[in-house]
Structure formats: structure tokens, C-alpha cells
């Protein structure tokens, strides 16, 4: 469970990016955070992960996000960055996947087992010993998701997971997301992907929640979306 209770945040000497947000995400929910650029989607992710500190209270499984609890909280949350190049910093996919579990004091044997399980589940065994700089963008995105899953997080947070992917790799990533059993929070401008993977959508504008409800209701509301600098998902748009 992730809960925001009247959370506000502003970058140094800047206007507030998040203004008194309150919402609650239950275990197992798939939530899409949507909104125009600068709406505050990525900042919400950073706040949950404790990468930035705001005002108000954020709870992850009833534990408050603060400096003392960061280790425990981050163990529960897996974050897939928008730019996989910034996520994969070890030489090979395998070493990158081992990095998280080893840091959480999982023995090398158990970590290896977990890594292999995840690779099997995602059908990525062929990437195991490949060098990160030699794999394609789509493979890198899948590998980045695998590195996070190897930590067995309770919730997976993803920042634009399908950006810069070709249609085939986009579909592979979407199918993978759909199969994840964890709580999912996904930020994206790809509303078709959000429609495919999320049950609930939170629409943000100027750091405030404009709408929060079932994905289909919000994503099919043309007026609401257009009023917030967005458009209907392509699959719902009328075609000539």
C-alpha cells in the first residue's frame, strides 16, 4: 500500500511542483500516472522512492518515507528508469541483475538462482552474459525491468517504460508489464499502453490531481484529456 497524505514539493527557489496531493494505492493495483510535461508525474516517483523530500506524509506499507526508513522502503520498491542506459552500469546484464540482491545481503548462490528465475520468466536467458553496451534499446529496457524484478520488490514503479521503443519491443514490454503480479505505478504519455496495463488512472495537472478513477473512464473522456493537454489514446480515436 502506498499512501500520499497532503504532500507538497517544490524544487529549490522554484514554484511548487506538487501541491497537497493525497491518494492511496492498494496492494496489487495497477495505476497509471498521466499528465502533460511538468505535471509532476516523475516527481511523485522520486518522492515515493525518497530521492527527494517534500512536505506531508508518504507511507509505504504503513512505514513513513524518511531518511531512517529509506533502506527498508527501497527494498520494497523497484524503479525502472526512463533511460535504461542510466540504470545499467555493470558490464553485463547478469552482473547488473546480481547488483541489487547482493546489496540486500542475499547470498551469491540465492541471488544467482533469483536472477536465473527472472531471466527464465521473461525469456531473457540469451541476454544473461551479454554486454550492456552491445544490446539493443528494446533488450536494454527488458534487461532493466529484469534487474528490478531480481530484487523481488512488492511494487514496481516505471517511468515511461515504452518510450523510444519500436512497436514490436513496445508490445513485448507491455506484455511483460501485464504479467507482473506486483503493485504497479506507471508514468507515461503512451496512453494506449496505460490503457492496456492499468486498471486505474490518476490524471495530474500542475502538481494537482485532476481526475482519479477507472482507466477506461478517464482515458475515454476526450474533453477531460484535451483540457489537460492530452489526447484520446490512438485506439479510441475515431479514424477517417
Amino acid at each position, binding site marked *: 500500500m502506498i499512501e500520499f497524505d497532503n504532500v507538497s514539493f517544490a524544487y529549490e527557489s522554484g514554484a511548487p511542483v506538487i501541491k497537497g496531493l493525497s491518494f492511496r494505492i492498494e496492494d496489487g493495483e495497477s495505476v497509471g500516472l498521466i499528465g502533460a510535461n511538468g505535471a509532476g508525474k516523475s516527481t511523485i516517483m522520486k518522492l515515493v*522512492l525518497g*530521492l527527494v523530500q517534500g512536505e506531508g506524509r508518504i507511507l509505504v506499507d504503513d512505514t513513513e518515507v524518511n531518511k531512517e526508513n529509506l*533502506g527498508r522502503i*527501497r*527494498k520494497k*520498491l*523497484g*524503479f525502472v*528508469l526512463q*533511460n535504461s*542506459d*542510466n*540504470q545499467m*552500469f555493470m*558490464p553485463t546484464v547478469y*552482473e547488473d541483475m*546480481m*547488483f*541489487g540482491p*547482493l*546489496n*540486500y545481503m542475499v547470498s*551469491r548462490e540465492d541471488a544467482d538462482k533469483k536472477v536465473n528465475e527472472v531471466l527464465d520468466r521473461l525469456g531473457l536467458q540469451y541476454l544473461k552474459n551479454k*554486454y550492456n*553496451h*552491445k544490446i539493443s534499446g528494446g533488450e536494454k529496457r527488458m534487461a532493466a525491468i529484469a*534487474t*528490478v524484478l531480481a*530484487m523481488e520488490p512488492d511494487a514496481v514503479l516505471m517511468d515511461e517504460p515504452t518510450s523510444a521503443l519500436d512497436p514490436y519491443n513496445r508490445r513485448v514490454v507491455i506484455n511483460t508489464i501485464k504479467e507482473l503480479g506486483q503493485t504497479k505505478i506507471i508514468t507515461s504519455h503512451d496512453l494506449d499502453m496505460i490503457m492496456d496495463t492499468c486498471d486505474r488512472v490518476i490524471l495530474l495537472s500542475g502538481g494537482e490531481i485532476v481526475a482519479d478513477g477507472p482507466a477506461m473512464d478517464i482515458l475515454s473522456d476526450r474533453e477531460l484529456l484535451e483540457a489537460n493537454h492530452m489526447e484520446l489514446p490512438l485506439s479510441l480515436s475515431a479514424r477517417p
Partner: protein
Amino acid sequence: MTPLFYVIIRLMNKMEKALGELGHMDELAVQDSPVHAMNAGAKLLCTVIYILTVMSFDKYDLSGLIPMLLWPVLMFQMSGISVSTCFYKLRIVLPLVMAVGLFNPIFDREIMLQIGGVGISGGVISMITLMLKGVLCLMASFLLVATTPFDNICAALRRVHFPAMLVTLLLLTYRYVGVMTEELAVMTDAYHLRAPGQKGIHVSAWGSFLGQLLLRSMDRAQELYSSMLLRGYHQHFHYAPVKPFRSRDAVYLILSLLFFTVVKFWNLSEIIGMFVTR
């Protein structure tokens, strides 16, 4: 294809080449050869002692230093990595090393040797000795990095109680070099695409170029660091297990040290020369 397209492809190739070379070092390090199979600690110790031995030669002791060349050449042969690969990879650093001692012939003009009636000054000999020392040290360092994964080198450093902070710094520097190179390549490409025909970066743009490079690299480094923190990193790296120290590593170490001692205390070139001329 338009000329502009060719320019773009050329620039992209340049970037890919730079990044590829960095990645190539990691690939070289995991090849299969007797040298690769050795314990990282043994290789590290050997390399450090080799470098110290090379540096300890007197600046005029060129003939004594030359046999030290045998060790890296033999190791390159055993590792299956060609010496030319080493020189190619070090092509940017080598001229700088070679420049050391360039002014020695000007300051030290005392004739120390006659070859075919031509007087060779002490400055020339010391210059060549210094150059050779630099080249040998670079070859040995390259050999270590090209035959040992960088993580294993760091693990070996930790095993000999090298401070954890310095080892982590070393490892992260190695990782971040790629990030900085990537940013530099992207910026250089963007610059050249808007300044066709210009060689290099114009001096008027140096300040903002370097400033931007620093800011962009810092941004990316920060994101990388965040990604590490989010996966439980707390200033401690869990290095992959290093190959155990076996009897063959001991043999390698003993033979290498024996060779260094012999070359250091007996002038092999002189001894061979005496046998040949006798």
C-alpha cells in the same frame, strides 16, 4: 544519400567507435587464456613489482632496462592479445609518455657513448631510457586491465586492504568514463552538425562546451547513482568471486619475480654481448 547524411553517419560512427573501444576492454578481459585464468591478486602484485622494478633503473641504464621488455612481450603472447592492440589502444597516451625527457638532450650534452664514430650524449640515452620506461609501464598496466575484469582488480585491491573508498572511487571512475565519453560524443556531434567544415571545437565555444559537458555528465552520473541507491547500494560493492590462488599462480609469481631480480641485478644485455663478442 545526401552529403549531410554521410556527415551524420560518420559522426555517429565516431561515437560508436569511442564507446565500442571502452566496451572492448571489458571483452578482452574475459577471454580464455593462461594469463586470463590467473589469480587477479597475483597479476596485480606482479604488475606493481614490474613497474617498480622498471622505475628503479638508472636513467643511463638503457642496456639493463631493455631485457625488461621480454616479460610483457611473453605475457602478451600467452594471453593471445597482440602487442599492436596494446599500442593501438594506448595511441593517445603514448605520445605524452614519449614526450617525457624530450629536453634531456639539450641539458645533458656530455658524450657517454660512441657508435661508429658518432658521439651519443647522456641526454639522448636518458631520454630513450625514460621513454622506454614509460612504454614498459603502460604495456604492463594495459596487460593487467586487458586480462583481468576491472571488478576483479578492485576485489584484489580490497584483498590487500587497499582503502575501500579509494577502490570504489576507482571502480566508479572506470564506469563513469563511459558516461562522460557518451555525453562528449553527443555534444561534439551536435556541434559539428551545425558547424560543417570546422575542425575541432572553436576556441570561443570551449567555455560553454566544457561547462555543458560537466553539467550533463553530472546529471547522468546523478541518475546512475540514484539507480544504484535504489538497488540497495551503500558505499560497498559486492565484487564477483576472484579466481582462487593456485599453485600455478605461485609458479607464475615466483618465476616473474625471479626474472625481475635477475634483470635488475645482472645486466643481461652486457652478459649476452660478452658471450657473443668473445
